[in-house]
């Protein structure tokens, strides 16, 4: 062997060793909260979805542009009347217990979502009236009426498939030891502590997975979460505090990724949830709400409350979203006009209480709003309220205005109907305008994109006039990670997709 050949052989050996080391790696992720039960049917938290992204594949996935792309389903067709959706299921997929994923398994899962006691998916799949196995790899969903958001529901927990065998055996306890078909299988979970997953060798998209193990650890305090990243105990953290942006940028070992969220931050106003609405000028008179909105400078709020890490907005989707109604732009701050409106309404110094969660960004938001609105004559009283209590008060209508965020759904309907539809479960504003409600319902039944956009334009114009929610901004999802980590994909739903990631 010549020396040149020997060097080449050594290099090849080195590369092979490096590759085997690289594939035997553990990725340690710091979560901002402790996930709830790991059963896609029962799960209720945003942070739980972050874990599911590695554990449970879905029928469809979202890409960076929020377009729906195949995952466990390879394709779909709508029937001509848009009342039936046919799904083609990927062949050769198995669950972590070796069971086969086929049309029957999909039917089992969708029925489980619809019928299991305590299911959180029931509402999402309510329009689905029948699920039929057409052939071993084809399923047809029958709907009582066309339902445009259905596909996007299948990109989230409603589209997650679990092993029917395990689900039947474990029943309600399935979440303690979930068996899905994602790239990683469940190993262990310490209550309120780490969740450990291990690579699933039978994964259908195995080539895209470059880690042996993933450990998700909830570290609630953002300073401590970041300290763990900086000291090397974690490789990746989600949702770091915007105030830490500069210190992370200054650290040459770390990298940042960010993208505008699909949710929103706004102020929900009690316009009809209870009698209180009529007792307060803000809830009673749309002119007062208009004056309130005109008193606010959204960019200023973003700069203070989020240190610039958000984009101002005035609708349930961000201005960069494909569904944003461009015909309803963000109004500019106009204190004089706000004062004039208040004079017209006969209340020059309206007072109201702003219920504010105890998180530091919500508090900062409330303080800026208070100061800005004061210039137009508003007397805003900030009432700091612990989150569970605030939801209870909001639910009973015992509030005047409420600083409330929504994590967002891929389809705009998920940010709209349940919040502003008449008597919808999250309609804390108590808003019910029959015409708007009809338009919202029509938008859900319109599968044609252009037609649907026209409806959203009309709805946006009506909501902007009635202002049951004054939308303020859309935060950036912020991730920080070890510079060695490559292939991180920023998708606006805030999930961490390990496919293609390497270290």
């Amino acid at each position, binding site marked *: 062997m010549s020396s040149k050949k020997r060097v080449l052989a050594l290099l090849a050996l080195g590369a092979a060793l490096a590759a085997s080391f690289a594939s035997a790696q553990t990725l340690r992720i710091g979560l901002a909260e402790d996930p709830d039960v790991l059963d896609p049917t029962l799960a209720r*938290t*945003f942070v739980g979805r972050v874990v599911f992204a590695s554990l449970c594949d879905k029928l469809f996935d979202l890409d960076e542009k929020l377009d729906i792309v195949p995952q466990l389903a390879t394709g779909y067709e709508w029937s001509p009347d848009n009342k039936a959706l046919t799904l083609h299921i990927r062949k050769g997929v198995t669950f972590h217990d070796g069971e086969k994923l086929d049309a029957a398994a999909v039917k089992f899962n969708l029925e489980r979502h619809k019928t299991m006691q305590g299911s*959180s998916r029931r509402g999402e799949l309510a329009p689905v009236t029948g699920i039929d196995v057409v052939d071993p790899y084809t399923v047809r969903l029958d709907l009582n009426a066309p339902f445009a958001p259905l596909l996007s529901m299948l990109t989230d927990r409603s589209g997650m498939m679990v092993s029917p065998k395990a689900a039947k055996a474990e029943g309600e306890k399935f979440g303690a030891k979930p068996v899905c078909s994602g790239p990683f299988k469940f190993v262990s979970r310490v*209550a309120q*502590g780490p969740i450990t997953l291990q690579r699933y060798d039978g994964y259908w998209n195995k080539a895209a997975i470059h880690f042996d193990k993933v450990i998700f650890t909830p*570290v609630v305090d953002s300073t401590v979460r970041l*300290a763990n990243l900086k000291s090397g105990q974690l490789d990746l953290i989600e949702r770091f505090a915007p105030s830490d942006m500069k210190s992370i940028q200054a650290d040459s070992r770390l990298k940042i990724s960010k993208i505008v969220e699909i949710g929103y931050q706004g102020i929900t106003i009690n316009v009809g949830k209870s009698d209180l609405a009529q007792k307060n000028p803000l809830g009673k008179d749309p002119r007062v709400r208009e004056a309130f909105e005109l008193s606010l400078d959204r960019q200023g709020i973003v700069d203070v409350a989020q240190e610039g890490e958000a984009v101002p907005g005035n609708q349930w989707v961000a201005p960069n979203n494909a569904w944003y109604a461009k015909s309803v732009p963000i109004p500019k701050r106009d204190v004089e006009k706000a004062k004039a409106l208040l004079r017209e309404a006969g209340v020059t110094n309206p007072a109201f209480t702003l219920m504010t969660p105890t998180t530091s960004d919500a508090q900062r938001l409330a303080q800026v709003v208070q100061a800005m609105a004061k210039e137009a004559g508003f007397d805003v009283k900030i009432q700091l309220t612990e989150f*569970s209590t605030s939801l*209870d008060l909001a639910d009973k209508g015992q509030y005047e205005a409420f600083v409330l965020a929504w994590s967002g759904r891929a389809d705009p309907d998920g940010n709209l109907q349940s919040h502003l539809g008449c008597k919808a479960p*999250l309609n804390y504003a108590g808003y019910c305008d029959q015409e708007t409600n009809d338009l919202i319902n029509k938008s859900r039944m319109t599968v044609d994109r252009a037609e649907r956009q026209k409806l959203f334009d009309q709805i946006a114009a009506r909501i902007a006039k009635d202002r049951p929610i004054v939308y303020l901004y859309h935060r950036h999802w912020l991730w920080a990670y070890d510079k060695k980590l490559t292939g991180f994909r920023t998708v606006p739903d805030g999930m961490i997709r390990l496919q293609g990631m390497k270290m």
Partner: protein
Amino acid sequence: MGDFLLKRLAAIIPTLFFVSILIFGLQQLLPGDPAVAMAGEERDPATIQYLREKFHLDDPLPVRYGYWLKGLVHGDLGDSVRIQRPVTELIVEKLPVTLELGTLAMLIAVLIGVTAGVVAAVMKDTKWDYAANVFALWGLSTPNFWLGILLILLFSVKLRWLPASGYVSPFEDLKANLAGMAMPAFVLGNAFAAVLMRHTRSAMLQALSADYVRTARAKGLDERVVVLRHALRNALTPVITLGALGFGELLSGAVLTEQVFSIPGFGKLIVDGVFNRDYSVVQGVVLFTATVYVTLNLLADVAYFLVNPRMRT
């Protein structure tokens, strides 16, 4: 001794009964519906209704207390609404973690506090005494979470000596366990060390001025023997009570410390339980802690007996 013990033991039962009523009642005063808190973002009305029925949330208060008490008698503290596991199982899982933290913190507190107290008393009005007093003032006035974060920034981020947070079982890896426990145990022990120091100092000052100490000195005993065998032994009586009760206090201090260092122990269990309106977790953990507290109090009384002969009459 037997009589005394029996009396004390009998008093525990009514005490715990009242504690159970108090815990149950106070918890219900909290605004917020556990079913709504648990229903997550979607808050599907059907789910909320199902949860209310499952956890008897619609029943009148006394009926619910009855359910709880009935379970209690059978050793069943109910299920956690959020974690979906029996509370007893969670307590068994978390207790060793917090006990370890509390014990290490206590060791640190006694080591620093009693030593500093003795030094301050023996060297009264010298710079050692002043230094010990400044240390006590500092320990008492430093918030746990703030000190915790400062230590993390120094020892984890800057020096990279210790892990910033998390917990490893000692049976898995003792070294990693102690490395992870070092900062939280110090933070937790630090404040209590200050309390112990103040009490040891004043008890020691009193003991050192007592007649028997003067006699001991007059007999020509070595000063070390006078301080450690004669004075300290008597001065320790109140310090022991304080230590026993302080252990209960350390457990409640662990609430914040565990939160800062993300240690999955009792404190974290209870904080998350309160925020999620996880009634059975809060009730179970508080009742358990109360029982521990009452027991420790009893043990402190027994310890008096053993240390102080005057009480044996």
